């Protein structure tokens, strides 16, 4: 090798080292902060003479995260869950102090109800529910033979957990804080830029249907990620909290614009597939101004404010083009198709403008101008799924209590509590068995490490400084494992196992017999949680659950068809958004279920929105009696179709719709209503949509030709 070669290589190697070091800095910072919070909490807990300093120390590990906002959010909900759980513990002990079956029954029921409540909430709120459940068990089980001690136990538990929370919060927010806010701002800007680039590409060139659907999927995932960050960032930064309503609005408008773009593209595709090229070409020409308006280099640093006037011009241009283009069309059918599409283009342009407006408002520095926006978000929850979670958690605990009573195993209580905790914590994970098993491996490693640490190292140490020195290497390993994304589960298990079993206290107790009994019991507990998930599988991802999700999605059309009108559009949009995010969170990326659920979601969204608009227009004006009579059967038939999709329901809906359209044509001035019905009909006849499975085996294209 020549000398020049070496010279050329050296800087790159250095660059590599520097970059690697920069990445590693973050990891080591996390390790250092976790350890700092851990030992500071331990020291304070011992100074305050709390019963179990290890509980406080465990808390710092449970809430540890790289981002301060995450730590604060999790801490906040952990505090709520702990207090509620402690109150529940007092009530349960107060009710059945001497009746073990009723007592354990009530406890199981409480744990189950909390697990059920967790499924009805997202993010860290679910964690608060789970925690409220198992905190009760954690407080009650140790004092089962001495009920009078429950109050002291509850107070001790609350103090320990709160101490851990406060110290973690302070350490993570004060010492080299790493804020989600910057990440989120970047994400929101990128999300905006990506979408605008995509709109530009989609409105100027041709993009394949598959690509658009894929892009939509990505946008939905982006929106969900942003929503997750928003729910944590509000704890970290008061300025972000003041803007939280705007971020919600940003997301909702984003979803609305993205879905309208989908509808528009599907409509044009359908028209083209059915050989109706004249209206399709007219529509493509109609939305061209949007593409031109966005034909500037857009990246994450482009201000949304500069795009705003351009979009407004485009909107006005579209409005001016509509009557001209409409006049140039020859046949009635072309006009009908064009009207349907023009309505969508108009809506899309408005939504794009509103979205950009919100983006500009969010990007503006300084305080929030204008009043805070209030939007009510409705959840799309599955009440039966929640009851199933109640049943599973209660059963797990009841079965373990039964074993405990029958076997009279002294450490049984420990095993039971641990099993309850982890059965609850992992219930909402997409793949709980895998998660618990990784955790179990970590727990075994942690138990081994804590044995070595406690009996070979700590016995030679004296004082808190040396205790830190003795424990640090072991904890560091765990924190590092936790910091690497691929081994997070193992690392968490390791640290929890280590902290639980070493049970640091002042004065320290060295009791190998207790240690071995405890470690066996706790490992059995984690193992039984794994077994519980194998025998009573998690509902998430099961065929039953997916079928329920389909049903819930389809029921949205029924809501659109019959729910009271005031505020319906917001309720419909936000419930859809919530269902969307659940699908994204609970299905594996790129799986068949995820694809087919999203296809259904799009179909539901398209039909539902058209139905709502139809009903709004129907209510806005006084129509002759005949108009109502003409439309009602079509709405009912559509509701039936989405309620229970079958071939006969499909035929019925199609025929009812065609009937309504031909009846409405006899009335004057029903153009606005016809547009919506026409849109629904085109969606219904689309042989590439999810509804195609229910079409009678017959060539559909001729129907499209004749139907109008």
């Amino acid at each position, binding site marked *: 090798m020549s000398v020049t070669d070496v010279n050329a290589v050296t800087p790159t190697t250095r660059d590599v080292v520097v970059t690697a070091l920069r990445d590693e800095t973050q990891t080591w910072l996390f390790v250092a902060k976790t350890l700092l919070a851990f030992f500071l909490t331990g020291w304070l807990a011992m100074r305050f003479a709390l019963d179990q300093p290890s509980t406080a120390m465990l808390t710092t590990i449970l809430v540890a995260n790289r981002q*301060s906002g995450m730590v604060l959010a999790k801490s906040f909900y952990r505090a709520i869950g702990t207090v509620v759980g402690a109150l529940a513990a007092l009530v349960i002990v107060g009710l059945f102090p001497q009746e073990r079956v009723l007592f354990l029954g009530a406890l199981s029921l409480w744990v189950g109800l909390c697990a059920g409540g967790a499924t009805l909430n997202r993010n860290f709120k679910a964690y608060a529910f789970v925690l409220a459940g198992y905190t009760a068990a954690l407080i009650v089980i140790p004092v089962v033979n001495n009920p009078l001690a429950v109050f002291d136990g509850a107070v001790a538990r609350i103090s320990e957990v709160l101490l851990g929370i406060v110290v973690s919060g*302070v350490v993570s927010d*004060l010492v080299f804080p790493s804020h989600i806010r910057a990440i989120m701002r970047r994400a929101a800007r990128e999300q905006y830029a990506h979408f605008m680039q995509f709109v530009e590409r989609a409105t100027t060139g041709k993009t394949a249907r598959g690509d658009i659907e894929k892009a939509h999927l990505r946008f939905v995932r982006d929106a969900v990620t942003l929503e997750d960050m928003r729910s944590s960032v509000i704890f970290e*930064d*008061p300025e972000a909290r*003041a803007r939280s309503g705007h971020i919600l609005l940003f997301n909702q408008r984003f979803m609305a614009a993205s879905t309208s773009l989908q509808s528009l593209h599907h409509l044009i595709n359908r028209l083209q597939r059915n050989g109706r090229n004249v209206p399709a070409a007219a529509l493509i020409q109609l939305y061209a101004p949007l593409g031109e308006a966005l034909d500037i280099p857009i990246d994450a640093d482009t201000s949304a404010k500069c795009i705003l006037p351009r979009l407004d011009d485009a909107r006005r241009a579209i409005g001016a083009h509509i009557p001209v283009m409409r006049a140039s069309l020859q046949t009635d059918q072309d006009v009908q198709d064009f009207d349907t599409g023009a309505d969508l283009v108009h809506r899309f342009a408005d939504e794009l403008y509103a979205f950009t407006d919100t983006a500009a408002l969010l990007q503006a*520095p300084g*305080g929030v101008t204008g009043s805070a926006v209030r939007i009510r978000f409705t959840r799309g929850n599955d009440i039966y799924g929640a009851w199933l979670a109640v049943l599973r958690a209660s059963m797990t605990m009841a079965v373990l209590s039964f074993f405990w009573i029958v076997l009279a195993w002294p450490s049984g209580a420990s095993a039971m509590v641990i099993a309850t905790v982890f059965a609850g914590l992992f219930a909402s994970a997409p793949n709980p068995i895998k998660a618990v098993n990784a955790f179990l491996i970590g727990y075994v490693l942690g138990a081994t490490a804590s044995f070595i640490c406690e009996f070979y190292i700590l016995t030679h140490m004296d004082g808190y400084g040396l205790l830190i020195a003795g424990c640090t290497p072991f904890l560091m390993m765990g924190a590092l494992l936790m910091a690497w994304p691929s081994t997070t589960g193992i690392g968490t298990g390791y640290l929890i196992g280590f902290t639980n079993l070493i049970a640091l206290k002042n004065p320290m107790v060295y009791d190998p017999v207790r240690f071995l009994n405890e470690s066996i019991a706790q490992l059995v507990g984690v193992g039984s949680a794994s077994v519980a998930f194998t025998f009573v599988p998690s509902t998430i991802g099961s065929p039953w659950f997916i079928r329920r999700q389909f049903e819930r999605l389809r029921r949205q059309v029924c809501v659109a068809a019959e729910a009271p009108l005031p505020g319906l559009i917001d309720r419909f949009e936000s419930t859809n958004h919530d269902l969307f995010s659940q699908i994204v969170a609970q299905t594996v990326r790129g799986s068949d279920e995820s694809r087919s659920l999203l296809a259904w979601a799009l179909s539901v969204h398209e039909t539902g929105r058209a139905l709502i608009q139809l009903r709004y227009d129907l209510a806005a004006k006084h129509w002759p009696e005949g108009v109502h009579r003409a439309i009602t059967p079509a709405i009912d038939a559509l509701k039936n179709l989405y309620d229970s999709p079958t071939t006969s329901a499909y035929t019925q809906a199609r025929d009812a719709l065609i009937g309504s359209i031909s009846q409405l044509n006899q009335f004057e001035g029903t153009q606005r209503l016809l547009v919506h019905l026409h849109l629904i009909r085109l969606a219904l006849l689309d042989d590439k949509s999810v509804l195609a499975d229910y079409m009678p085996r017959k060539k559909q294209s001729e129907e499209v030709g004749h139907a109008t």
Partner: protein
Amino acid sequence: MPREIAIAGVLIPGLLVWFLISLFLLFFIDMVIGRFGLYRYVWHPALFRLALIACIFGSIALLLY
């Protein structure tokens, strides 16, 4: 001021009540500052907030006990 307050027969330190009140105060001040974006004039917002709660709680406690 009473050192301990009895709620349903449970003695609760009076300072705890005042601590909760200071937390609410902090939350309120925080909201106002956040609304007008004044944290941009502060070097370390988190440290500022911690100092603020220490000041509020400290002054209340010293004033009343």
